[in-house]
């Protein structure tokens, strides 16, 4: 049994803007294995977010094949894609994308709502467990606007975790956060990776990429570099050195 979670073969994505064709991806071949912690890097326009959206089943490629957890995604219809997002993928966004005026707990429950096999009690229990794993159990009844940016992103991570996905995809998860909060978020990802969860993040900050164990650099829709990080930075150690912030900034 192979331990490849995500496998892409010659992924091509072309956006048509009137007569203009934009080649966002020009053939990406990449395998992501179980328990990998991958950072995808590159300048804006390099195709890293497009790649992420396709791997996350939010978008479809123009050409090429890819599979997630052994499922050939190209053959799925819209509903099956939704099921796949629901069961196998946890998404974390740069702008958090929490439902406003909805408590942290209910935001975390949201993916479970679309899983008809789970009872209300199970739903509650799983959501509380996920919130606990990001250290926000005491904030479960707060609304997003009552939480700091870091806390909101941790709620988003809990939401990504709650369905026990095979992979967590995070698109610039620290893009809207200050340094300390960024390190806190990376710490959470490192903890999750340590217990065997595959994590893929998109970032353009080399600092952030330093916390992962594999860096893939995109340029103009192609893979430029794919290197293993020999000695990743350890977020939990660095947190001890950073000055504690009494009041976190709210973004």
């Amino acid at each position: 049994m192979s331990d490849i979670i995500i496998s892409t073969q010659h992924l091509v994505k072309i956006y048509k803007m009137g007569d203009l064709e934009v080649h966002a991806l020009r053939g990406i071949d990449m395998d992501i294995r179980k328990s990998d912690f991958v950072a995808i890097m590159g300048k804006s326009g390099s195709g890293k977010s497009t790649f992420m959206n396709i791997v996350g089943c939010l978008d479809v490629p123009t050409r090429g094949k890819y599979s997630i957890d052994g499922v050939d995604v190209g053959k799925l219809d819209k509903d099956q894609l939704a099921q796949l997002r629901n069961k196998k993928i946890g998404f974390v966004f740069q702008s958090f994308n929490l439902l406003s005026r909805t408590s942290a707990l209910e935001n975390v429950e949201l993916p479970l709502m679309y899983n008809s096999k789970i009872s209300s009690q199970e739903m509650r229990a799983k959501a509380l467990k996920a919130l606990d794993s990001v250290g926000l159990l005491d904030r479960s009844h707060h609304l997003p606007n009552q939480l700091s940016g870091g806390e909101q992103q941790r709620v988003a991570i809990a939401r990504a975790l709650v369905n026990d996905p095979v992979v967590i995809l995070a698109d610039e998860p620290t893009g809207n956060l200050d340094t300390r909060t960024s390190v806190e978020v990376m710490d959470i990802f490192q903890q999750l990776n340590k217990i065997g969860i595959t994590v893929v993040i998109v970032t353009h900050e080399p600092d952030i990429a330093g916390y992962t164990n594999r860096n893939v650099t995109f340029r103009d829709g192609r893979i430029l570099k794919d290197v293993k990080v020999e000695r990743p930075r350890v977020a939990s150690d660095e947190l001890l050195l950073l000055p504690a912030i009494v009041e976190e900034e709210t973004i």
Partner: protein
Amino acid sequence: MKLKNQLRAAVRSLSKNKMRTFLTMLGIIIGVASVIAMLAIGQGSKESIQAQISNLGTNLLTIYPSASMTGGVRMEAGSSVRLTLDDYKAVASRCPAVMYSTPVVRTSGQLIASGQNWRTSVWGVLPDYFSIRNLDAQFGALFTSAEDRTAQKVCVIGATVTKYLFGEGADPSGKLIRINKIPFMVVGQISPKGQNAWGQDQDDIVIAPFTTVQQRMMTVTYINSIMVSATAEKVIPEATDEITQVLKERHHLGASEDPDFTIRSQADIATAATATSGILTVLLASIASISLLVGGIGIMNIMLVSVTERTREIGIRMGVGARGRDVLLQFLIEALMISLIGGIFGVGLGILASGIIASLMHWPVTITVQSILLSFLFSTAIGIFFGWYPARKAANLNPIDALRYE
């Protein structure tokens, strides 16, 4: 997504924007309420017309002389052709489908009694008239055939006449009144009948024996009309045929010639009046339905705004695994909830409005279960119909576009 969760999500999102939800609902509330009130008014007037007509007796037939034609110019009805007492006698004796019958002469008279005076119409009829019209005496008695035969100067009067001559609620029996200076003895008062379907006061009348009125008051030989009642409502066509045959024969008219008289049946009038009020009901209800329709467009409008406003939310939901049909159902349930709750309040308001109309305007109103069900179902259908388009629009959004929407 489970239905329970869907419902909870719908309640939450509707309560986020209470004012907007209420205003959208108001369109449906007013629509449903006006449909119910209009149907209640229509149904009420229909029933009251039917009640009044059956009060008159549905197997009543009236025979009038027709308008005659002289050199192509139609003259006033009865101006040249007259019915006579012999016509009446022929109808009475030779038509087996006729049960009661009476000749009718009508005149108007100035009434004077106890220092008061009043002008009203005076009818000369046989006692059969009371049976035909279902009349009985509230005070005193009705006059008899013997009194008619001997042309006694007796009469019965209606409650309105009593009111103006003797005061409201007085017992006029035994009182003497003068009609056109001829003294009459009032033997009784008929039970009040109120207004008929055309607004005429049926109690503003003096009824006297036929012979007395024809010979002593009017001194004529013709009669104005003949009133008969058929033995049953279903033999009205037979009765009509028999009367036509007898009168044509007496007036020396061939079978193919037009009759010189008209037979009007109460059933015809009943059908016409019911049809009229039926048309009125349909008219009122369709105007009210338009407001319900406008309410539905209001739902569609607000749902479209909501879909645009919540594009990001739709993106998030799709991102975590909502299928198109989950999103469709979510928006459809919200639209349906607005129309259902609006419908419930609308039914309440409609019943209330009908009650207010009934007590303020003194109009007869009848609320039927069918009208409530109809408007309720109609409003639900409107919710689905007008909610469908925005819901489908939401469901067809591309997750990545929805997530990027600012």
